[in-house]
């Protein structure tokens, strides 16, 4: 690309295997929709300690990508930092290599982030997360009422600027997904921290959200957008973090004594 892209969208792969295929197809659709809307999109992949199958599938189905980079961090936060470093776009979007995304995500996120009323600096999130479970084939409904045991569900995300928002909520759970849309400059200013299992701290996206919120960076919502997240039968990354006993890193400096949640 001769001029700076509007957006660099980076998908991060590890050992997704066949899940990488729908992810790449969905990402291509995302990119095509944004380009059709006139945006200059740089599409990249970062393979962090990927296995051979994932590497092979990315090569087979990802020839349309502008760049594929291999790293060996074994750490989602550091992978994203590497992706941010290598990116050329004014704005960055990150994707996980086993998910899918509503095709309007990039287009609408860019529009929201560059609108005259947008904050000078902000992190943008999809309006909804749709978690789908392949196991729901065994809990399938052919009617309008879902099976009572269906595990697919929606999570509606919230803006930090909305009435009644309590940032202390973040002390007790992560309230946003990891795959944000934000200016490259913001990512350079707020890099992700590495997981430190020896000290029991990690959960890079949660820690990043806390750090940016406490740095007064607004977290905004892009209406009518959705990320489609695969619920893995073996447990989510969040569940893995819990099983490893990891805690989020608090924003530094740790807020003073009064009203610890504000």
């Amino acid at each position, binding site marked *: 690309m001769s001029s700076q892209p509007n957006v660099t969208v980076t998908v991060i792969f590890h050992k997704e295997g066949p899940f990488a295929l729908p992810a790449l197809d969905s990402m291509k659709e995302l990119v095509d929709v944004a380009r059709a809307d006139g945006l200059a999109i740089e599409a990249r992949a970062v393979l962090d300690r990927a296995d051979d199958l994932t590497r092979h599938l990315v090569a087979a189905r990802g020839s349309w990508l502008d760049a594929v980079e291999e790293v060996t961090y074994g750490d989602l936060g550091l992978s994203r930092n590497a992706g941010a470093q290598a990116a050329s776009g004014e704005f960055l979007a990150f994707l996980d290599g086993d998910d899918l995304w*509503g095709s309007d995500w990039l287009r609408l996120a860019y529009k929201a982030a560059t609108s005259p009323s947008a904050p000078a600096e902000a992190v943008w999130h999809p309006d909804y997360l749709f978690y789908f479970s392949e196991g729901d084939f065994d809990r399938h409904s052919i009617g309008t009422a879902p099976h009572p045991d269906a595990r697919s569900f929606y999570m509606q995300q919230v803006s930090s600027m909305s009435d009644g928002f309590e940032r202390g909520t973040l002390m007790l759970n992560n309230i946003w997904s990891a795959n944000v849309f934000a200016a490259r400059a913001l990512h350079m200013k707020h890099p992700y921290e590495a997981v430190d299992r020896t000290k029991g701290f990690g959960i890079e996206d949660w820690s990043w959200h806390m750090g940016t919120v406490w740095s007064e960076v607004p977290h905004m919502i892009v209406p009518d957008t959705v990320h489609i997240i695969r619920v893995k039968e073996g447990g989510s990354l969040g569940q893995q973090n819990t099983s490893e006993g990891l805690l989020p890193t608090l924003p530094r400096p740790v807020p003073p004594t009064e009203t610890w949640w504000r």
Partner: protein
Amino acid sequence: MGMVAKKIALQLARRLKAHLVKVHPLVRLTRQHGKEELREHSSSAKSKGLIPSKAGSAAPKANQQSSRPNADDHEFRSFISAQFNVDWYLRTYSDVEASGIDPIAHWLKAGMAEGRLIAPNVIVRSGAIANEQADGGWRIFKWRGKSVSVLVTDPTDAEEFLTFVSAHFDRGWYLKAYPDVEAAKVDPLFHWLFYGIQEGRLPGPDLVVRTGSYATRRTTQAWKCFTWRGEPIALKAVRIPDAVLQQVRTQARHDPAVLAAGAQALPKLPHFGADDLLSRDGVDLLGIFSALPERPEAVVMIPRLTIGGAEQYAADMVEAFLGAGLKSIVVLVTEQTAEGAGDWTRHAILAPFARARVVFWPDACGPSYYSPTVLARLLNALRPAHVLVVNSRVGLDMVVSFGRGLSQFARLYCAYFSLGVDGLGAPYGVRYPRKTAPFAISLTDNDVMADALRRRYGAVPGPGVHVLPPRAKKLADDVFSERISARRARVASGSRHWAWVSRIEEFKGTEILKALACLRPDDEFHLFGPLEGKLDALGLDIDNITYRGVIDDLSSADFSAHDGFIFTSLFEGMPNVVLEMSQHAVPMVLADVGGLRGTFDEAATVFVKHCATPEKTAVEFSAALDRVAGLTNAELIAMVTAARRQVLARHSPEAHLLGASNLLGAE
């Protein structure tokens, strides 16, 4: 008759009919109030001579009450009629509207029994429950001889609630989700309003509901709070935008699993607000924020506020933290609500907790109070310098799972008191030390336990084992002298009186006590301590065993009339009750358990070793009691004085403070 004439006749007939309805009360009543009212009106009309009765028949006698409404019924009906919202009733209950029955008559005859409302803001209860509503705005009536209570609430509230619910309630979804409702052919909205809410049934995927105490805790702006039938209820309407649904559906062409739950069901799948932790995780954020307004310097976790050695140990640690200069201490009661704890402040041993902020974790946190993850995240946010876990299961699990991170900013202490006996019981001292040792100081109150912990897990890299003997409240010297004098002046009678002071449960050796009492039928055994259940369940309903209840303040109790104190426990750490009894100048006969020998020697007490059976142990105890009974006054005085001295040497408040300071400052 020609067509024109027919038409005119029909018009006349209609006008005549309308006229009759208008002018004739009986006709109007028949149409409007149903047959029952008609019967009542007829009998009234006959009594007034408005309608001729059958020839020769007299007017109804005034004393024929059984089938006639009485004054109570009339009062009730008048009240109900005044409150009745006919239009609303017919709109709400389409079956009534279709039948043409007068709404008020329908309700009195059947609707009240079915729980139907006469208006959105009027609540009616009948039967036994009616008599329970004697205040709070309820009015009690009699209808057909039975009590009925009525509460007229703010009409705006109920109407708003029903309007909101009606707009989002999914009748089809409800019937599919609850086939019993469909089989009963009950209106689904009616069922949910009058049964489903209380039963916890969901109203559909477009509405999220909170009831009870959580209903008043509106955690995000999306929640609307109402009052329904006198109870709070909060609702949140959810609807997935079409643009989002369309994008999800489209992605199924890349992975069909996106629609695994069913394409048609997509809009109705469960919905959560990401910041609504109460719905997502069962965590009441506002409850936690209000219970913990500031960061504490120390957090002490205990399961319940109850009388017990572990609780006393924790309370003494609160004193120690305060003595060490810590100003802000939170006592997190992890398994008990405030209601369950009752008036815990009346127990003297728990008094130090009153100097801390006591938080009943189930009340503050909500449904997920049992989750170590939630607790760990809270402590990560609070960042106390010290975290002490005393018998709290969730606290121990938290240390096991998250101790690596928590220990980065806090000194963690897990208190372990004993190892059980011969595989009986599953104390935490057996199950947890290996797992918490890498992150937390294994804190114990006795050397026997400390030795066992060091032997087993001393090689695990971690902060190690620390002994902090429990604190004994020192009785004033002059009071002890008075008790010595009373002991000296005491003249023993034929039968002996023995005090048994402990929590009354099997592990405290109640089998031994039973056998002992049987061996010594002429002696009296007085039991003091909390009792769960009944004495006969423990076999202690024996003539010479008397339960004397709980002593709120052991230090001020009087044991001068007792020949001795018996302690038959099967296993212990360092039992506080023995330390306290040492201040009473009463000879002590103690099971040789736990760390007692770390404080007492044979000059101060009579030790009894446990035998293979309770009966054999009882024989040994009986021999010990004989020995005590055979001591001279001087020997008794020497024994009780030695006991007090040995306790104060190791367990005085000063010794405890010094030990605690070493613990808190130890590397």
